[in-house]
């Protein structure tokens, strides 16, 4: 689920190799093409932001998309009640001018702006938000966002088809929407900041049915002009957008099928304005070239990369073995191998997550202590565990570094690089995978999204792939989840995290830092630690293409 989104930032090894071949062929084909923006029917002198992506966008339907690429376009085309800031993870007004929640966090009321229109000119009302949430809840849509709205009163009856509308979504007037929840959820407003809860015009969805993704109409800063599968997506300014003066560029052209290597060549040739993700091959070169280094932006993501140990499979049932692994892996070396693109992890939560405990000590690199613990656990010299990992070049190098470290304490690690899909399948089966490399990126800025989702017993077979369980941790998590007093809430989560770190179901590795590079004529690009970059405030100074 969300970890799949994290993975989409990486690129598969086989795909990478094929891209290397394709890149040469495509370079020949593209070099003869006319300038971007031509043939789009835009007035002369329009400012066009040119992007590139390796893969086609999976979908533009906000009820369906649940990956970084889909979200990066959906957040331009649609608007939600609330949203995160361009560079922060605070909730800001979007269509809702203001909102309030009951003290027990079971009733949330949103007051909407009256000047919001879809790109077809039709005014946006509270019904459009209810319609989209009901689409997500409707089993026919098969939305991955369904879990986020199950807690709304009456959602069960609606899903079962017993009611026409969700009883817990009340619309007292066209510009007010009230959500009644079955249990306290202080995070509910954050769930409405996901594209799953965007305003969508019912008449357009009903007209196109499953084809809505190709004919999306929303109320965001841009609207879809053209989507030629596996070739390009063109967004143009939405004339009805409710924030005056935005967006600052007239159009966005995203070229599809441009892999990292080709993307880099096109960036160097000035044919791409912003390159999300510098190819690993070029990273050291970029950072050692002052001219290019100045053009980069970086951001520590709210995510954690870890080595999971299956707590139900011997010898990882023994906490001494799990701690030994934590002492044996040199995390500073991993960061060095990544050329500094990471921050050493001391626990589960990333440093920029609210509730992060700066006092947590974690495990230092201490091979001697690791050896001692392994001896105590009676691990012999013939110990050959297998580490499953995603078959992508960067991940394989990280795994080889871990393999080297463990070799020094007498553990001979076998590596099993597999594709992302099979890896997720495999680690969800109990008693199947003893060790795996994985990562998690936040959906909401709250410790629950890490500790509860990844380490509670409830999530066995879901997202708790280490099959870790500690009744005390489960108690603390259950106590913290409905708590609205943030101080107390975070304290409970910090307590839970301490126990988890001591139990060591993971080797806590690092928090990745993401990089983008933009041309000198591109201004106003900021990175968000948890969401794709937004483009409505980006502008271009005059330049030669």
């Amino acid at each position: 689920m969300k970890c799949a989104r994290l993975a989409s930032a990486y690129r598969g090894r086989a795909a990478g190799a094929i891209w290397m071949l394709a890149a040469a062929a495509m370079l020949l084909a593209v070099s003869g093409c006319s300038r971007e923006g031509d043939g789009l029917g835009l007035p002369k002198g329009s400012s066009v932001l040119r992007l590139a992506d390796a893969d086609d966008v999976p979908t533009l339907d906000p009820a369906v998309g649940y990956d970084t690429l889909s979200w990066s376009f959906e957040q331009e085309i649609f608007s939600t009640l609330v949203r995160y800031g361009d560079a922060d993870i605070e909730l800001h007004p979007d269509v809702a001018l203001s909102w309030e929640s009951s003290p027990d966090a079971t009733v949330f009321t949103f007051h909407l702006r009256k000047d919001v229109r879809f790109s077809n000119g039709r005014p946006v009302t509270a019904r459009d938000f209810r319609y989209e949430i009901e689409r997500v809840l409707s089993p026919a849509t098969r939305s991955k966002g369904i879990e986020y709205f199950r807690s709304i009163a009456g959602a069960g009856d609606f899903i079962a088809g017993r009611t026409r509308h969700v009883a817990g979504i009340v619309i007292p007037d066209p510009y007010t929407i009230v959500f009644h929840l079955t249990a306290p959820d202080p995070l509910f407003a954050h769930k409405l900041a996901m594209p799953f809860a965007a305003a969508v015009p019912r008449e357009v969805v009903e007209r196109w049915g499953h084809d809505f993704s190709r004919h999306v109409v929303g109320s965001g800063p841009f609207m879809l002009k053209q989507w030629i599968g596996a070739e390009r997506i063109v967004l143009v300014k939405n004339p009805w957008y409710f924030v005056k003066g935005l967006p600052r560029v007239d159009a966005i052209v995203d070229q599809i099928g441009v892999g990292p290597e080709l993307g880099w060549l096109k960036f160097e040739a000035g044919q791409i304005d912003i390159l999300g993700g510098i190819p690993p091959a070029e990273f050291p070169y970029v950072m050692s070239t002052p001219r290019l280094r100045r053009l980069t932006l970086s951001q520590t993501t709210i995510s954690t990369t870890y080595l999971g140990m299956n707590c139900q499979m011997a010898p990882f049932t023994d906490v001494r073995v799990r701690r030994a692994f934590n002492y044996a892996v040199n995390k500073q070396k991993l960061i060095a191998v990544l050329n500094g693109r990471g921050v050493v992890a001391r626990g589960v939560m990333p440093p920029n997550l609210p509730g992060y405990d700066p006092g947590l000590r974690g495990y230092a690199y201490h091979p001697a202590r690791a050896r001692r613990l392994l001896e105590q656990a009676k691990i012999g010299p013939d110990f050959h565990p297998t580490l499953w990992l995603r078959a992508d070049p960067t991940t394989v190098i990280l795994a080889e570094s871990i393999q080297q470290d463990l070799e020094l304490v007498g553990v001979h690690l076998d590596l099993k690089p597999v594709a992302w899909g099979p890896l997720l399948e495999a680690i969800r089966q109990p008693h199947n995978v003893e060790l795996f490399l994985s990562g998690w990126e936040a959906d909401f800025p709250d410790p629950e999204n890490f500790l509860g989702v990844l380490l509670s017993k409830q999530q066995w077979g879901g997202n708790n792939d280490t099959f870790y369980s500690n009744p005390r941790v489960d108690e603390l998590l259950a106590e913290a989840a409905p708590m609205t007093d943030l101080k107390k809430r975070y304290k409970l989560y910090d307590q839970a995290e301490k126990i988890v770190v001591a139990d060591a179901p993971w080797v806590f590795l690092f928090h990745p830092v993401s990089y983008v590079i933009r041309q000198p004529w591109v201004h106003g690009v900021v990175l968000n630690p948890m969401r794709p970059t937004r483009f409505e405030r980006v502008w271009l100074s005059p330049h030669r293409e």
Partner: protein
Amino acid sequence: MKRRAGAMELVGGAMVLSLIAVALLAPWLAPHNPIRAVAPTFGNPAPPSWAFPMGTDELGRDVLSRVIYGARISLTVGVAAMAITMTIGVGIGLVAGFFGGTVDFLLMRFTDVMLTLPGLLLAMAFVSVLRPSLLSILLVIGIVSWTGIARVVRAEALSMAQRDFVLGARALGASSPRLIICHVLPNVMPIIIVMAALGTSGTLLLDASLSFLGLGVPPPTPSWGRMIEQATMYFRVAPWLAAFPGLAIFYAVLAFNLLGYGVLRRRSA
């Protein structure tokens, strides 16, 4: 003319022998453990120096030691895969050529079909299904590269089957298997040896390509193709990481080609 052909095959033979020696003596020749970090050059490969004549890689490993140990994998794969290739190719070629008629027609059409499939793509498909390991790489390379040999051997066997000594042996009551193994095979042996030497360079390259695509022998075992693949990430800042294993592949392929062409030229001279 004859002397030059001999020189070619001598040089080729010497090069092949040197490769075998390096592979066998790797633990004594390599200055360092090829898997362990021997210099703290993490993420920042170091150029060649006195201490590390081929530099160190992004995990602090000595490139020279890895190239030396890489000879083991490359030679094992090259030679063993060639043995599998030869077994399949020679078997099919001999049977088709000796029996002729329908057997020949069916086997050769099958060979034609296999020839139409691009070897590298077929190998990639097989390895993806089988999961990369030394054994699966050997099998896959063997399975995709026997066709050329089968055709050549079949052509030779076809003419042998009509020769007087074969007809004579048949008249004396020799069975077909006996005729194939004792009479035809020894006479097509020279061409098989040439094909094997030339083919080994092909299998070496195929192994390197598969490794380059990430489908070779899994890490940390050093293999030349994999070393080049990982080096592509650092090509601009550390070109030596790709250059040394590249030269090693070049040397090995040249060695087997010289040997093969040397034998071939001597035979036709």
